Structure formats: structure tokens, C-alpha cells
């Protein structure tokens, strides 16, 4: 199968998955009750005529499948509508998206930079004291939830030592910016969440790099490389790591969506104004336009990340395309 055919086939599969999820998200809203009721919950002085008008503008007077289709066509034309509390959903999300991506990408990059050398070291010295220490502490590390690590870090470095702010993206009052500089102030706010987040996602990556490296080091071409007198450095990095990176790329791709979905906890702990915190706040109000948009966007990002990973993988390793 050619690579193009493969890409087309994988993308076609995304279509039913995407519709399945929009259907699910749409039905949860309707299960929750009358949207007009939810819409007007904040405004009790609204009269019946206005309710009818709202009902019409939301297409609620039409049969349910038409309602779904009109919601879907709005969604596909990137019209995310307005939240129950009034703001434009697109604006709400785009304002918060940067904060989320900043934290996620920095955490992911840092954890890879730290985890890859540790994993390689552990694989090279397999069954040594060092390896056992690294593996068992990584196993312990996978069990430490971010709400424990984050709260502990805030207590020690925020409330107790006052080295870092206890939360937020930047100081609310410009006169209190660190050295009167916005960028420095934001970096100062970023330090604690980014560090904690990096450590929270570090352990699984270490274990993955180790097992992937071990798998590669068993291959014949490594033996051949060693036999032909290549330096250990060249064997490890040029032939070993390069091949071991394939599953790691997959991991990063596949879990990017998962990481985004985990954002509510991280962002709530650090009071970080990202999409995750937005989602928690608006879910408490059952503000469905926002809820639906966030779920659909995160699903889409996951699907695209999966597709890119699949294709990269098929490109690197032609055996996958064969099937």
C-alpha cells in the first residue's frame, strides 16, 4: 500500500469517530434538560415571549435530528456560538488556549530532555544498582498524582518560602510585576507549575525509553555495529537511540491528547488560566456551549495527533503499511 493510500484510509476512519463523539456530546446536553432553562437561569426576569424567541433562535422548535444537524453545521463552520453567561465561546477558548499549550509543551519538552538520558543510562547498565534504583523510583513516580506534588510544591515554595507565587499566570497588578517586567513576571509564575508538571509526567517516559532502548540493543545490527568496531557512543546514539525513538514519538503523539484532557487538575491546582480551568469553571455552571466546544476541540486535537503519529510511524517503518 502506498503511503498516500494509507493516509487517506486512516483519515477516513476519523470521520465516523468524530461524528460519534459529537453525537455523544450533543445528547448529554439534551439529557441535562431544557437548554432555554439553562440559558436563562442567570436571568429570572425574562418573560415568556422572550423565551419563545430564544427557543426559535436556538432551533429548539424543530425536531431533534434537525437540531443536531444545525448544531453540527454551526460547529463545522467554526461558529461556536455564545456561552450561557454571554461571552463568545471562540474568544473564551482562544484567550485560554495559549496558557494551556505553554504549560503542556514546556512540560513535555523538559520531561523528554530529562527522561531520555536517564532511560538510556538505565538500559545500558541493566540490572545494576543504578538501573534498579531508576526503575523502582520511576514506578513510584508514576503513582504520584499531580494534586499531591502540586499542593506540596505550592505549600513549600509558595506559602512557606515565598520564592514563587502560589498560582496564576501573571500578577494582577502591573505595579507588582517582578522587576516591573511582564515577561519576567510571567516566567516567575510559570516556574513552579512547569517544574511540577515536568516531574509529574517524567516517570512513564523514563520507563518507556528504557524498555524501548533494551529492545533495540538486542537487535542484530547493534551486535554487527559493535563487531565492526564502532565506538560505544556511535552504537548507542547513532544506531540505538535513533531506532528507540520511534515508540517514543508514538507515545508523545498518542498521549498529547491525553495530556490536554488532564489539564483540568493541573490548572486548578495552580490556578492557571488555561482551557482546563475554563472547562472546570463552566462545567460547574453546566454552560453547554463552552463544554461542547472544549470537548470537541480536544477530541479533534487527539484525532489529529493520532493521525500524524500513525503516518509518521508508517513513514519511518514501511512494515506497518504492508498489513
Amino acid at each position, binding site marked *: 500500500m502506498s503511503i498516500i493510500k494509507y493516509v487517506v484510509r486512516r483519515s477516513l476512519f476519523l470521520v465516523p469517530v468524530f461524528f460519534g463523539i459529537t453525537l455523544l*456530546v450533543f445528547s448529554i446536553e439534551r439529557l*441535562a434538560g431544557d437548554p432555554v432553562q439553562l440559558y436563562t437561569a442567570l436571568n429570572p426576569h425574562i418573560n415568556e415571549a422572550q423565551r419563545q424567541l430564544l427557543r426559535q433562535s436556538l432551533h429548539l422548535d424543530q425536531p431533534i435530528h434537525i437540531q443536531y444537524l444545525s448544531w453540527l453545521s454551526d460547529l463545522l463552520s467554526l461558529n461556536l456560538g455564545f456561552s450561557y453567561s454571554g461571552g463568545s465561546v471562540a474568544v473564551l477558548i482562544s484567550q485560554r488556549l495559549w496558557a494551556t499549550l505553554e504549560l503542556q509543551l514546556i512540560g513535555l519538552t523538559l520531561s523528554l530532555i530529562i527522561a531520555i538520558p536517564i532511560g538510556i543510562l538505565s538500559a545500558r547498565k541493566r540490572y545494576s544498582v543504578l538501573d534498579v534504583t531508576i526503575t523502582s523510583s520511576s514506578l513510584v513516580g508514576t503513582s504520584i498524582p499531580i494534586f499531591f506534588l502540586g499542593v506540596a510544591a505550592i505549600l513549600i515554595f509558595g506559602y512557606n518560602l515565598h520564592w514563587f507565587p502560589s498560582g496564576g499566570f501573571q500578577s494582577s497588578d502591573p505595579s507588582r510585576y517582578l522587576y516591573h517586567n511582564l515577561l519576567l513576571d510571567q516566567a516567575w509564575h510559570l516556574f513552579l507549575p512547569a517544574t511540577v508538571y515536568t516531574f509529574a509526567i517524567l516517570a512513564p517516559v523514563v520507563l518507556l525509553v528504557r524498555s524501548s532502548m533494551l529492545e533495540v540493543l538486542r537487535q542484530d545490527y547493534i551486535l554487527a555495529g559493535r563487531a565492526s568496531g564502532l565506538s560505544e557512543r556511535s552504537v548507542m546514539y547513532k544506531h540505538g537511540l535513533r531506532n528507540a525513538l520511534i515508540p517514543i514519538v508514538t507515545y508523545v503523539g498518542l498521549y498529547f491528547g491525553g495530556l490536554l484532557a488532564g489539564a483540568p487538575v493541573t490548572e*486548578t491546582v495552580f490556578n492557571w488560566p488555561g482551557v482546563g480551568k475554563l472547562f472546570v469553571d463552566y462545567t460547574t455552571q453546566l454552560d453547554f456551549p463552552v463544554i461542547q466546544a472544549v470537548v470537541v476541540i480536544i477530541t479533534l486535537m487527539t484525532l489529529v495527533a493520532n493521525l500524524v503519529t500513525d503516518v509518521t510511524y508508517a513513514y519511518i517503518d514501511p512494515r506497518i503499511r504492508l498489513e
Partner: protein
Amino acid sequence: MAQTTLEQRPAGGHRVSQWALAWRRLKKNKVAIAGLGIVGIFIVMAAFDRLVALYPPKCILGVSPACQLDGRLHSNSPPGLAYPLGTDITGYDVYSEIVYGTRAAFLIGVGATGLTMLIAVVIGLAAGYFGGWMDNLLMRLTEVFLVIPFFLLLLVFLQVTIKLAPANTGSIWLVVFVIGAFSWPGAARIIRGEVLRVREFEFIAASRQIGASSYRILFRHLFPNVLHIIIVLATLQIAASILTEAAVSFLGFGAPGSNTWGQQMYNSANYVEQAWWGTLFPAVFVTLMVMGFNLLGNGLRDALDPRLRE
């Protein structure tokens, strides 16, 4: 290898089952035994919670008749002799409430995992054994569930239920049910893969040859041979379920009346600056229990699946 449930007859003449062999391997793994020890301690804590705790459940120190102390309300008091882990805003002894929360943690872990594994086993067995369109359909369904941002939908579901049926919000069963109903896709995939492997063995072909029914092959031959994988997946899933419930409750979407560790953290989270012990200590116990099950699960994987050990 595959004959996990068949018994071997070593040279000595006495029979040693594969389970006994696995137990021998597990015993040698110090990390796994540490995990087993942690889980064991928590089981004792849950079973004898009244004995392990210092005060009765929901006892307001200095107010409730059962825990009068000096007759003065002890709210947000730091750890001391009468309350080793401090007291929370209401005046509950943090240590005793954590002990009472152990039972809830097991209930969540085991309950959600039971449901998850039930769905995963049915789907994994059916897809792997019947193959064809059934496999195709079930695996597409699994992929849909894999991409669903499960944690986000969990929050929405719980909030909708709180709104629709406020009377039911005291129950953690809803949280258990939703976690269980959404966590199965990964496990279903792994079980299916293992069924596909075992299905090709000669003893399956042989029993089909002598006229065994599909039902018999599925439950007498395939199921016992994938059981070891189910045990490993279930152990790890218990940890994951406990962690998910703690995160959900910590965010304020849990069952308000329940005494899970996540709920305790949530109740104290607003006072974390004055009384950090109310939030941090329940989190320590969540971490410990999750760690116990994770270490045990990884050890079980090594012990039950010797192929991984080379």
C-alpha cells in the same frame, strides 16, 4: 508459556501449578512485595477501621459527645498529641477520617475495576474469538472510546446528575459506575490481542475437532489462558480508578456527602494556607494506595508473564 493453568510434573514427582511458580517469582521481587505489603496494610486498615482510628466517624472534636477533649472546638488545629495529623475546618480528626476513607477507596477501586474488566473481557473475548465483522465492529467502538476525553466527560456527567437528581449526589456509586463504564478500551484491546494469540494454539483446534462448543472453548480454554493478563490489568486499573476518583472529587465533582480521600482534600482545599494538613495528608494516602497497587501490578506482570523477563 501458554499452558498457564495446566499443571506441570517436575522430575521430583510432585505437582507444582503455574500459579505456585508465579508466586515463587513474585516473592523474589522486592518491589512487588513492598506493593503487596502496602495493599495488605490498607486492607487491615479498612477491615478494622474502628480499631485503627482514634475517634468515631464524623466526630467533631470538642463538640460531639464521643470526643469531648477539653470541650473547646478544635477546628483547623495543627498536628498534635490528641490528633496526630491535625484537624480540618469542621473539627474532624484528619487521621481518623483518612482511616474511614480507606473503605471507600477500596469500594471505588474494586467496584469500578469490576465493571471495567467485565466489559473488557466480554469485548476482548468476543472480538478475538469470533473475528470478522464482529472484531471489526467492536474494535472500531473501542477506538471511539479511546479518543473520547474521558475525564472531561466524567466531570460533565457528574455535574448533570447533581443537577437532575440532587438526592443521589451523596452516593459514590455514580462515580464508580461512570469510571467503570469508560475505562475499558485499553484493557479490551490487550485481552483481544492475547486471545488472538492463544486461539492459534493446537489445543484449541483439537478441542474444536472433538466437537467442543464455542461457549466451552471460550470459557474453559480461552478464558483461563488469558486470566493472568486480566489479573495484571485489573490490579493496575484499581490504582487508576482510585486516582481518577480522587482527582474528580478534588475538583469538586465528587459525592459531597462521601468521605473519600479526594472529597476530604476538596473540603480542606480552601484552607490550605492556614491548615495544609487537611489537604496534604489525604493526598499522601491516595499516593500510597495507588503506589501499592501499581507496584503489585507491575510485579504480577513480571511473575505471571515470564515471556517479558527473557
